[in-house]
């Protein structure tokens, strides 16, 4: 299903042997026999048994040929792979921070937390109003304030005019004042956003988990191709991650810094 020209939501029927995925886990999709590598996508929903959903931004050959797959076609997937997020403890409020297609990495988590009756703040940042269509795929805000959904756009065409991290900062500020519950952050989005969210979490001493992306080959930890630097050396996104404690990550010097 196409959401807008840049993004598609896929529903895949899976084999009965396919284990129920955990939020944060991903699958490796073989979208075209012309490609050397599979493409990893977060499980963006698995509410109905025997089905998983993927939310895919069209970027290059792999995602485009996936989008051209016609309904009813069979696609080879491997998974679910990778680790999962920590659960928020009872006193915690989950703050989900998604940048653009980062929504895909957090949607399943949001659905699970919402079903468990947890308190949730979901912050979605995007370039323009159109991208907020992604927000429609997330659990809706509830009237009792248990689930809140806030937006930011780079061009101010919807929600807060600015970055989602600015939004995050002010939300955390408000939470601190309120002293209602301690926040736990879950982030997925472009590298610059991840880095900034991690800095905010670190400054405020808040637990923060991030879902990272790296180009992958094996998806099993075998090839050492998808590493990120951590305080304990390189770790693989596919098998040590894709979810990492932000405090463990070592960010490269920013370019031109």
């Amino acid at each position: 299903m196409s959401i807008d020209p840049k993004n598609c939501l896929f529903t895949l029927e899976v084999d009965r042997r396919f284990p129920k995925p955990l939020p944060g886990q991903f699958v490796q999709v073989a979208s075209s026999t012309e490609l050397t590598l599979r493409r990893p996508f977060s499980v963006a929903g698995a509410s109905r048994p025997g089905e998983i959903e993927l939310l895919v931004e069209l970027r290059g050959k792999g995602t485009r040929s996936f989008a051209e797959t016609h309904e009813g076609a069979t696609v080879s997937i491997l998974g679910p792979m990778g680790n999962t997020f920590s659960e928020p403890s009872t006193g915690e409020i989950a703050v989900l921070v998604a940048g653009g297609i980062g929504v895909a990495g957090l949607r399943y988590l949001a659905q699970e937390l919402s079903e468990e009756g947890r308190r949730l703040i979901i912050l979605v940042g995007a370039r323009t109003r159109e991208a907020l269509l992604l927000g429609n795929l997330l659990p809706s805000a509830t009237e009792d304030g248990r689930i809140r959904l806030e937006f930011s756009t780079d061009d101010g065409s919807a929600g807060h005019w600015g970055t989602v991290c600015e939004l995050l900062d002010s939300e955390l500020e408000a939470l601190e004042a309120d002293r209602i519950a301690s926040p736990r952050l879950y982030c997925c989005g472009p590298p610059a956003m991840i880095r900034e969210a991690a800095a905010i979490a670190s400054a405020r001493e808040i637990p923060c988990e991030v879902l990272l992306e790296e180009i992958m080959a094996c998806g099993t930890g075998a090839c050492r191709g998808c590493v990120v630097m951590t305080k304990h050396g390189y770790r693989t996104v596919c098998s040590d991650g894709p979810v990492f404690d932000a405090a463990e990550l070592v960010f490269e010097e920013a370019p031109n810094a």
Partner: protein
Amino acid sequence: MPDLTTTLGRLRLANPIILASGTVGYGREYASLIDYSTVGAIVTKTITREARAGNAPPRLKETPGGLLNAIGLENVGVDRFLSEKLREAATVPSALIASVAGGSVDEYAELTRAVASREEIDAIELNISCPNVERARRPVWDDPEAVGTIVRAARNATEKTLLLKLSPNTADIVSVAEAGEEAGADALVVANTLTGMRIDVEARKPSLGNATGGLSGRALLPVNLANVWKITGAVSIPIVGSGGIADPDDALEYILAGAAAVQVGTALFADPGAPGRIAAGLADYMQRHDIESIEECTGLARKEKEREWQRTTAG
């Protein structure tokens, strides 16, 4: 059922399909995805004396028909390999080949001795050809004498099957192959990856953190197949074909060119079922052509061409 067994030195493989170094880790990582009963042997990620952190990411870049990697020989070092990883690797039912790379002739000997002393390890593959760590103008893999010295040192360190993995980044792979045979290698792996790179034009920098990497996958097949073809006439030890093998026909091309076995690497990423598909395809080909043993296939195309050359010269 046709006979797929094949022999490399003292090592008898149930099946000519070997999983290539660096693409299956220590085998265990792929345990739930690969049917190891269709795999004759696996080669470990190359082991060095000290642990190596490897190169800065990105380490992978897909290219048309191929894959560039610049892992930089990330590995835990020989001690932790023997104390931790070997146990994992030994759970894989296929034969186990340890790949080693030394920084000097002595290190090659030392590493060979260390891994060969363990009974779980059936053979040793000498990696002289990793393009991601070499910096000299004339690399070792291009120097028959240097290669001979390394192989001799390793040969003195073990009686187990010794494979020598050559590099395609040379003008004269045949002389290196001959030097390897002469120095006592039991088999030649032909060959590793080609040096390559890509550039991200928007970022104006190399796509790989290490700038250059090794090109594997289908794009590499024609080059390494030609290398097997050239070497087949020159040496009498078995050749293991490697580079871009994804389908039964790819494996057959290497075998008909002169290979006794093949390695499958990059193809596993898209299809962990590739070894099984290839094994089945080989069996099917043999049945269709009434061939009982895969060993009969080795070099058939090469032998036919030699007869033709003789006819032309005679005529």
